[in-house]
């Protein structure tokens, strides 16, 4: 990004939106990455020549995508209310989720993923369980399967432990939460992995929705997710943290050399090692390990555990 003065940074030079440039200095734009690479790393006297810009653009974008998948901490957060089918439509730039929570009374309650399927496709069948077809020979499909309706209607799953000591017991509801008499002794049969009073969710990737169980329609859900950094195809908006800038050049250089004819193997290997070490460096830098922060963490080492 080009250098800008303070007025442009803090007030966007009087234009709207005012916060357009806030924090922008930590990023380098895709335009700059491609431009710098074409200027500095390709040419008659460089390792790579006779290069099309779109090749650099492609590998630069691929590099940014890879960084977004695991190395960067660019988590996006989207809050939406569920529809009547207890579904949360995946964000348009969704690639993978980080954490999904229910926002209730000003508090975020992290939800647990139901690793069992909560959705299924089904075919229409007659009384003899024979599959029904339309006139074109295609199978007839209802909109929702029994699994779908069962899951979204809050039906019990294995996570609701009917063998629980609290099952069918009387308790007290205080501020929307249930309290029971303290049970003495061991409790068997509880799935500790999912021992959570909050609703569970299941991601239907094919349909592009998150299904929820045991949750009311209209409930507010917050999804923290990662994208690929492509900003819906807006090339001008794509950027990458400056800590990864050198890595990105190395990634593009390696990708180009690796795919070229007649490049010696030691040159490709050098580029590969260069890329790998720069990625490690960038990750360490981005992890923000400071002595002061470590000191605060280490202070807990002598804490007594009850």
């Amino acid at each position, binding site marked *: 990004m080009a250098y800008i003065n303070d007025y442009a940074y803090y007030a966007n030079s009087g234009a709207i939106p005012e916060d357009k440039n806030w924090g922008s200095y930590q990023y380098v734009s895709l335009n700059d990455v491609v431009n710098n690479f074409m200027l500095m790393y390709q040419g008659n*006297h460089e390792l790579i020549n006779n290069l099309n810009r*779109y090749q650099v653009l*492609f590998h630069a974008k691929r590099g940014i995508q890879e960084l977004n998948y695991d190395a960067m901490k660019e988590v996006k957060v989207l809050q939406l209310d569920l529809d009547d089918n207890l579904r949360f439509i995946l964000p348009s730039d969704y690639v993978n989720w980080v954490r999904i929570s229910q926002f209730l009374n000003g508090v975020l309650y992290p939800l647990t993923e139901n690793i069992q399927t909560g959705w299924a496709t089904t075919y229409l069948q007659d009384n003899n369980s024979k599959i029904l077809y339309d006139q074109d020979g295609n199978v007839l499909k209802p909109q929702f399967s029994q699994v779908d309706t069962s899951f979204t209607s809050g039906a019990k799953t294995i996570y609701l432990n009917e063998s629980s000591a609290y099952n069918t017991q009387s308790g007290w509801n205080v501020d929307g939460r249930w309290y029971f008499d303290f049970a003495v002794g061991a409790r068997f049969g509880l799935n500790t992995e999912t021992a959570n009073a909050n609703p569970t969710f299941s991601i239907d990737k094919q349909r592009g929705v998150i299904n929820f169980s045991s949750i009311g329609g209209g409930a507010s859900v917050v999804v923290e997710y990662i994208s690929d950094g492509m900003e819906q*195809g807006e*090339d*001008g908006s794509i950027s990458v943290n400056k800590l990864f800038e050198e890595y990105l050049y190395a990634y593009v250089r390696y990708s180009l050399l690796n795919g070229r004819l007649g490049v010696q193997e030691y040159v490709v290997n050098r580029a590969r090692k260069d890329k790998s070490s720069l990625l490690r460096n960038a990750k360490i830098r981005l992890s923000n390990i400071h002595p002061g922060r470590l000191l605060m963490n280490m202070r807990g080492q002598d804490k007594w555990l009850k």
Partner: protein
Amino acid sequence: MINSVRNTVLAIANKNNYGYISPQDFNLYAQQAQMDLFEDYFYQYNAWTNKENQRLSGTGYADIVKGLVEVIDNFSVTRSLAQQGANLFNLPSDYYLVNKINYYPTQITSGTTTAAALNTLTDANATFVTSGIKVGQQVANTTATSSYSGFSGFVISVDSETQLTLSYSPFGVAATIGNTYGIFNTTGIVEVERVNQNKIFYLNNSPLTAPSTGFPAYVLGGASSSVIGDANTGKLGNTITVYPSTITNNGSVTAEYIRYPLSPKWTYQTLNSGEPLFDINQADYQDFELPLSDEPGIVSKICQYVGIEIREGDVYNFGNQEEVKNNQIQT
């Protein structure tokens, strides 16, 4: 230089009264010789670039490539491209090779000239001050049929709402009155990348690399007129198709290209004796555009043509040997 070349050639050819070279013939040979040497610069540039990479060329006075580039750069021209329709633009008729195509994404205003003057844009209907025209912005003549089509200049001063002072004269003659113009911001310019015809389909269909206004692309096409260089139709030379197809702003696409050298013309006055006398003041006079250091090469080339014309092998052989020797020195 052209008179010196001609005198040298005549001296060589006439040494034993071999024959006489008419001015018309000389001009033809001069054009051929200049084109030959001009093209040779690009091959030399490539050869010497490779030698540089092998450490066979040095820096400073040993920097051969630098000298070659300086000569080639003399022929570099920047022109705004006339729009033929939608995203199709005409290349200038005098281009030898396209160096770069640039896209000016932000047009400030456009209009039609109402007067002509050197280094001036006058439009009685314009509101330059109100429109935010500033010093440094580019003004281009966007009338495809104008002989000044594509000529451009930078704003030096905003004189009034209706007049600008420019660094060049795209509207310098009376014939340009009524020509259209466009004024473009000179920030945010992006290079339009050359893509081969066989790649553009894949490029347009690739989500990651599809041309955008930030990374536009173009493909070179054939001439849009059946008569290449037909100035009457305004469809000159080849065309380029720019992608994304939303780039349709007339005057927003600019070419930096290497033009052909102008045809040399030895002009003269005819004396009563019939002897032509060199006259540099003729309107169509044109000297060689190659540097003075190329004079021996040009003489050698012309001697070869002359040797064939007057059927004198010695003259041809002399020119040929001189050229071979010259090439050996340079390599």
